[in-house]
């Protein structure tokens, strides 16, 4: 089973795509690399979100709560004491995972849309806190961090690509493993899963923790790439929407689709940039159309085309 999973077409294709993507710095501009670097971090955000929504069936409208906690904790720590970047990132991950537990707390009591609402409120509260505690967080102006991972576009690109590759491998592996099976069943029918002896709460909480781990780490790494954190890039509801649209656009319940969706959103938006504000509108309209007419997302369309031939 392990061997079959490792040699399955999605894994092989992903491997080839990542290898091909790693050669990009040899022939594209630093500007494009910069765009893709951000897209890769968003890809991790979307994959982490898909584990919660697509597998645990928890409607989390607040991915940016987890991302923001990781990003700001790492950034603030660096700003205050300037410890090694790795230490800041670990702190960011821990903060995000704590946030994951907090986010999961109401889950057994409120279901579906109501749970989604609590996650949305969490985002707003974090956003408010950042604005109120401006002395610590930089408030609405944003937080500038003294350290960056590298000033070389190519190095930053390769770091983001490897991070996305490793995260994707782990998250995809998890989703296809035994625990992934249990998680999926717990999300689909908690009563039946419990009747088979599975502790549904335990598995869902674990999903929140894993999702928070990757969201927080990606957030922290992105801060040290950008050299700055602001509400608009990490916490705002629109950030969360982009993460969710990326995951759904790529194909929910596929994990890997998150990367596809995130890169698509960035690339498409960039292509249409000459159109100004209209670009955002067109990207949103296309995303909406895909979600409405191809619920399986981009990966679903690929699978459908393969099944048809």
């Amino acid at each position: 089973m392990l061997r079959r999973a490792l040699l399955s077409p999605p894994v092989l294709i992903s491997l080839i795509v990542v290898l091909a993507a790693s050669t990009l710095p040899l022939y594209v501009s630093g500007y494009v690399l910069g765009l893709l670097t951000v897209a890769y971090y968003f890809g991790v955000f979307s994959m982490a979100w898909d584990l919660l929504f697509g597998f645990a069936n928890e409607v989390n409208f607040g991915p940016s709560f987890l991302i923001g906690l990781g990003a700001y904790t790492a950034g603030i720590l660096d700003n205050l004491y300037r410890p090694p970047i790795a230490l800041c990132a670990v702190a960011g991950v821990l903060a995000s995972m704590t946030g994951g537990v907090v986010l999961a707390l109401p889950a057994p009591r409120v279901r579906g849309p109501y749970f989604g609402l609590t996650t949305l409120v969490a985002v707003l509260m974090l956003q408010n806190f950042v604005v109120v505690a401006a002395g610590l967080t930089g408030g609405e102006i944003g937080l500038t961090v003294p350290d960056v991972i590298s000033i070389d576009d190519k190095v930053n690109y390769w770091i983001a690509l490897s991070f996305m590759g490793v995260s994707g491998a782990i998250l995809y592996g998890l989703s296809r493993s035994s625990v992934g099976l249990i998680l999926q069943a717990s999300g689909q029918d908690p009563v039946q899963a419990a009747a088979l002896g599975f502790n549904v709460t335990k598995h869902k909480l674990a999903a929140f923790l894993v999702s928070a781990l990757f969201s927080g780490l990606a957030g922290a790494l992105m801060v040290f790439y950008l050299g700055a954190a602001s509400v608009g890039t990490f916490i705002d509801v629109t950030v969360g929407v982009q993460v969710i649209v990326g995951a759904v656009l790529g194909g929910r319940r596929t994990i890997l689709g998150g990367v596809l969706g995130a890169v698509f959103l960035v690339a498409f938006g960039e292509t249409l940039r000459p159109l100004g504000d209209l670009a955002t509108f067109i990207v949103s309209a296309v995303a909406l159309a895909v979600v409405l007419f191809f619920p399986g997302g981009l990966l679903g369309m690929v699978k459908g085309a393969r099944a048809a031939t």
Partner: protein
Amino acid sequence: MSAAAARLDVRGLYKRFGGLAAVRDVGFSIKAGEILGLIGPNGSGKSTVMKSILGVERPDGGSVRVDGVEVAGWAPHRIARLGVGMVFQHSRPLHRQTVLENIVFGLLPDRLLGFFPGAAVDARARAIAERVGLTAVLDRRPATLPFADLHRIEIAKAIARNPKVVLIDEPFAGLTARETASVAMLIAEMRNDGRAVLIVDHNVKGISALVDRIYAMHVGERIAEGAVQEVMENETVRRVYLGGALETAARPETAFRDVATPFLDIKNLSVVYDKAQALENVSLHVHQGEFVASSD
């Protein structure tokens, strides 16, 4: 029967929903290798009894013992691990997984760090599939299977953990006559394996050939208990099911004016909802001015 010998022992079970007492003082016990039919019309509380045993509902009073261990109020997964399995009426298999993977799921340990099931689990899953008659469709996805096979997947998952007590909710709902016979055989096998089986159904006749005893409920209470024949002849049971003795005042069919072309004429009607067989070869005709009632 002493409580010690019983695999499942329910005593003085109470369950309220707000002001409504859904279950009042219900108690029965099932020995190893015995099938008890828990029957009652819709709303009689039989499903609540089942959910209370399973731990999905927390009983307000009384005791539920599995092999002598008090489990009332436990979380469902703990009760399941102690040896209570459940065959759900509406199967919801994992649709993106194969039949084999669905059975493997039933065999997985409840661990966060279990990543790959291993060859032993795979072999056990295949053995269980063989037992319930799913070997031919192991690599198919549930969506492509007939209703009876989905039911077999449920049975396979329920017996995967080798439960001492099996709860079965309306096992024959939606099955054709032939499928009913094969599922009945699987349930009889559970008995032969020494499991205590509780079948919950609103239909006495459907399960009467299979069960050893019947416990009949009405509006949350016991109305009769005992051998099948005994319960079916019980005055209260008959009244609950048929509204008293069945008295018909049938007029001969020739008495109606529209003998040749009845007002309503149904011949060999079969209805399938999704995959469940709701009606199979039902024929009925109603004349003008005639009163016909249907009951199951």
